[in-house]
């Protein structure tokens, strides 16, 4: 308390200095006078009395000085003085200040921007209660494409019954439904969940209440919870919405709650629709779900670990349980295991490697920026050598001078940092607004304490990094001797030249690493978009349609509807051909239906769990013609096969090659586990491979079934047009409402858009890394230019002498450019080694390019060397223009 009071008083002592100084002087004066009077009274002479009084006091100025130190806060005092001085110095060289602040703002801003995304995606705890205990449990099978497979309902039941590691388990499965009643009909994305779903997540609803155990029973499940978005858009934020009814797929449902804003559990790996849910409905197990023979795998399973149970313990127990199930139901569960993954990893796992690489890259850019500013500071420091020497001679300690230089750097960095933070938050949000949907599952970032702390840390780091070097260099070079040296001609001390060379070399090395990384990404992106998707994507319109089961009860109704609808579409002017498919390529059903067991001729005896798998696609008439998928052998479907099930099937080339390596597949009979009655169907044709969702993934073995074989209510229509595809959308809506005015269309897009979206993430990563690499290239060029210009300025004299002694302009050019080239080559060599090591980390991001691709490395090395030579050519030109007479006379 006393200390605080004293401190405050001292803080106050920083102000009103003059009045206080006057008072102190008065006090000293009266002290001396009283003492002198006493001394005189003791019989001393006037002079002696004064001398003794002064001796006894210990000097007036000394006393005042120690008094002042006690009065204010000397540290803060000098700091303020340093800041004032630094501001004055920066005002005197506005060019330097502007360049330094901008460079740092870019470096710090870019770092903060990437960090704010890293923070939001990877670091910030998920907004669920005790989110670290939430896990997703998958099935896995070494024979299957997907590492994380969705779960079969009976297995879920056994897991839940047998485990001792989870507090609770929930399931979810995405689906779509038609929302009718009220305004226009609309397709909504529904998440079918277990009744305990919200409880497992620990989410409190914004309005109403979550599902109760009662809703988990047959007959009580006609309730739903709205998402905040749907509540706002469709129900105009009606506060009394709870208790109202809506119609989903023609069935009435009561709204029991509204989820909090931003609540959105979307697990892409297990999603059947690829879309974020708009509402939640309880899903009750029908009786057949207890029978492994009747139900496949389609649940995403969410679980909450018991308190104190580790991921490892949970995994160990799930291994035991699943191997038990495999033994008990070898027909269905042999080879199937279970994988427990943290929810956080599920939500942000895919973006993680790209994000971390960007984070590293942006760190490099910062270091390059710092090196540049550092190099600028060094030039300035050399110019200010005499100033420093004078100050040292006048009694400033080296520490004091170093501190002042550091203050200048911190001031620069703080200005740059403040600007950078602003740019970062504003820029990131602008970018997120524009970035393709679902790219990051992130709509905005905020300057939360962690981001601010990071930005401040980076700023301080930057200040120390580029402030320390010049300070150190100034403090330790021979300051005193520079007074003796003639200030102008003295070559920069060997020490500072070494530092500057080292700075340029490291800038070039880092720039090379960034360039190599981004060149690799650019190359893989180019290769990626050059991949032939297997069909003609131009002029292709796609949209989804989902018929409610309440209205279209039987397959026949669906077949009739789609038949009539496609016929109507064919009459729209500008339409070339029309067809439909259940899961068309690039429609967001990442791995949906790619692993259905298939029974091949001669292998009928294999148990279900060991059967080979195929992607199952259901198509309408003219499908292959509409999509432009080439027929490789046999024939396409005949009209009769598309109106009633005739048990025929078409397979793709991969299927033919993998499962009929030595025989002709045409005429062979196969069947799939998906159908109610496994009637063997004849392969009538083989078509070209199509990339299903990802240009970088190999095509799956695929079977195409005529629509009547598996008459799904939800289909995606594909329309090949002569005109711009989106221009016919109004006509499509008219055609639909003339058949059934209650059915909406959804996900209207052109195939070009869908493909472009599928590579959006790669494009985004490539774009960002390319921007960073370009930035680093420019900064490195500026760096080398600055160093060479400075070197030329320093050597003007020497160059003049050389020319006077007969050196030709070409010799001078070689001298200067040679020096730049030497630095560039060393930097390139070091950078190449670094890049070779670091690009290995990018392996998962690359497509058909080796991380140590020699051509890429050679290209960027050449590019960087050319840029470095160009950057040193300009100062070299200046050196060539030196007039020897002028240079010498100047001496």
């Amino acid at each position, binding site marked *: 308390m006393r200390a605080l009071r004293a401190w405050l008083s001292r803080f106050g002592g920083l102000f009103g200095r003059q009045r206080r100084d006057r008072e102190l002087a008065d006090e000293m004066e009266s002290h001396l006078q009283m003492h002198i009077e006493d001394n005189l009274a003791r019989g001393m002479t006037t002079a002696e009395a004064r001398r003794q009084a002064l001796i006894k006091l210990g000097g007036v100025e000394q006393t005042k000085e120690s*008094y002042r130190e006690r009065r204010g806060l000397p540290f803060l005092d000098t700091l303020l003085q340093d800041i004032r001085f630094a501001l004055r110095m920066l005002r005197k060289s506005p060019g330097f200040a502007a360049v330094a602040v901008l460079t740092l703002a870019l470096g710090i801003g870019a770092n903060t921007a990437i960090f704010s995304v890293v923070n939001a995606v990877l670091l910030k705890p998920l907004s669920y209660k005790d989110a670290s205990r939430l896990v997703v449990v998958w099935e896995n099978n070494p024979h299957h494409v997907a590492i994380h497979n969705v779960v079969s309902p009976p297995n879920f039941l056994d897991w839940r019954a047998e485990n001792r590691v989870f507090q609770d388990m929930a399931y979810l499965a995405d689906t779509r439904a038609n929302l009718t009643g009220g305004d226009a009909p609309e397709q909504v994305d529904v998440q079918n969940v277990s009744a305990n779903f919200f409880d497992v997540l620990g989410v409190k609803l914004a309005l109403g209440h979550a599902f109760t155990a009662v809703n988990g029973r047959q007959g009580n499940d006609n309730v739903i919870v709205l998402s905040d978005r749907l509540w706002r858009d469709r129900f105009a934020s009606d506060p009394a919405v709870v208790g109202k009814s809506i119609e989903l797929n023609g069935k009435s449902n009561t709204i029991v709650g509204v989820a909090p804003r931003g609540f959105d559990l979307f697990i892409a790996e297990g999603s059947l629709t690829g879309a974020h849910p708009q509402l939640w409905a309880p899903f009750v197990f029908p009786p057949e779900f207890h029978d492994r023979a009747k139900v496949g795998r389609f649940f995403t399973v969410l679980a909450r670990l018991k308190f104190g149970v580790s991921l490892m313990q949970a995994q160990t127990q799930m291994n035991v349980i699943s191997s038990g199930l495999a033994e008990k139901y070898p027909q269905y569960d042999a080879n199937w295991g279970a994988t427990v993954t943290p929810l956080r990893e599920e939500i942000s796992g895919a973006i993680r490697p790209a994000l971390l690489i960007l984070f590293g890259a942006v760190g490099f850019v910062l270091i390059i920026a710092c090196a540049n500013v550092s190099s600028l500071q060094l030039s300035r420091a050399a110019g200010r050598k005499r100033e420093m020497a004078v100050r040292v001679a006048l009694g400033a300690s080296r520490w004091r001078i170093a501190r002042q230089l550091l203050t200048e750097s911190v001031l620069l960095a703080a200005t740059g940092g403040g600007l950078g933070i602003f740019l970062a938050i504003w820029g990131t949000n602008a970018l997120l607004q524009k970035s393709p949907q679902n790219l990051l599952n992130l709509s905005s970032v905020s300057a939360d304490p962690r981001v601010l702390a990071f930005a401040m840390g980076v700023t301080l780091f930057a200040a120390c990094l580029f402030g320390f070097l010049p300070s150190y260099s100034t403090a330790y070079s021979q300051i005193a001797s520079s007074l003796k040296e003639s200030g102008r001609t003295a070559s920069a001390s060997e020490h500072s030249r070494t530092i500057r060379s080292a700075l340029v070399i490291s800038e070039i090395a880092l720039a090379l690493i960034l360039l190599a990384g981004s060149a690799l990404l650019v190359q893989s992106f180019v290769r990626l978009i050059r991949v032939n998707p297997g069909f003609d994507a131009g002029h292709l319109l796609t949209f989804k349609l989902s018929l409610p089961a309440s209205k279209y009860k039987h397959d026949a109704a669906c077949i009739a509807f789609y038949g009539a609808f496609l016929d109507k579409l064919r009459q729209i002017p500008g339409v070339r051909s029309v067809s439909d498919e259940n899961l068309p390529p690039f429609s967001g059903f990442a791995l949906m239906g790619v692993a259905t067991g298939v029974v091949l001729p001669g292998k009928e005896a294999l148990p279900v769990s060991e059967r080979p798998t195929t992607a199952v696609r259901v198509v309408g008439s003219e499908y292959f013609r509409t999509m432009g998928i080439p027929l490789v052998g046999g024939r396409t479907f005949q009209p009769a096969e598309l109106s009633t099930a005739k048990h025929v099937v078409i397979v793709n080339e991969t299927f033919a090659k993998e499962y009929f390596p030595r025989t002709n597949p045409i005429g062979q009979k196969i069947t799939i586990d998906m159908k109610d009655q496994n009637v063997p169907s004849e392969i009538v044709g083989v078509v070209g491979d199509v990339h299903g969702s990802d240009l970088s993934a190999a095509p799956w073995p695929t079977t195409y079934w005529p629509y009547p074989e598996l008459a799904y209510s939800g289909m995606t229509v594909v329309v090949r047009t002569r005109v711009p595809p989106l221009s016919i959308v109004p006509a499509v809506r008219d055609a639909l409402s003339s058949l059934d005015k209650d059915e909406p269309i959804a996900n209207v897009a052109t195939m070009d858009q869908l493909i472009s979206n599928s590579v959006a993430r790669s494009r985004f990563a490539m774009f960002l890394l390319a921007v960073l690499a370009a930035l680093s290239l420019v900064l490195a060029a500026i760096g080398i230019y600055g160093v060479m210009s400075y070197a030329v300025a320093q050597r003007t004299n020497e160059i003049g002498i050389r020319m006077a002694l007969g050196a030709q302009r070409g010799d001078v050019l070689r001298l200067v450019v040679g020096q730049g080239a030497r630095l560039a080559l060393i930097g390139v060599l070091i950078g190449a080694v670094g890049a070779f090591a670091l690009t290995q980390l990018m392996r998962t991001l690359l497509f058909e390019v080796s991380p140590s691709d020699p051509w890429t490395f050679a290209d960027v090395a050449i590019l960087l060397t050319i840029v470095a030579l160009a950057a040193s050519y300009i100062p070299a030109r200046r050196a060539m223009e030196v007039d020897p007479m002028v240079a010498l006379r100047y001496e």
Partner: protein
Amino acid sequence: MTDKTSDKSNYKSGSKNDVQQGTLALMILKTLDSMGALHGYGIARRIEQTSGNLLSLNYGTLYPALLKLEQEGYIASEWGVSTNNRKAKYYKLTRAGRRQLEREAQEWEQTAAIVARFLSPEGERT
């Protein structure tokens, strides 16, 4: 230069060199307690006299000490006129200062007693 640095470490509160400083503060407080309001010079003379001139005080060190005590709220100052009709700054004890004096005096006596016992040969044995 060197003087300055040694001064500085003397006035740093909480460091080991405080014994001197603390003692000086205690002497100032006691002087003001027994003499009433007094100016800096008077305090310095009084301390020297009281110590029987055993203590040679550098008067200059008194002023930072006075300032510190004032900042801590133990003493207060105001300008007044001395007996010789000279303008001088007078210091006087505050209530907090009186309490502090009691506390410090007690502590000092205790410390002195303990040290005395250590230094006496009998004390070591018991």
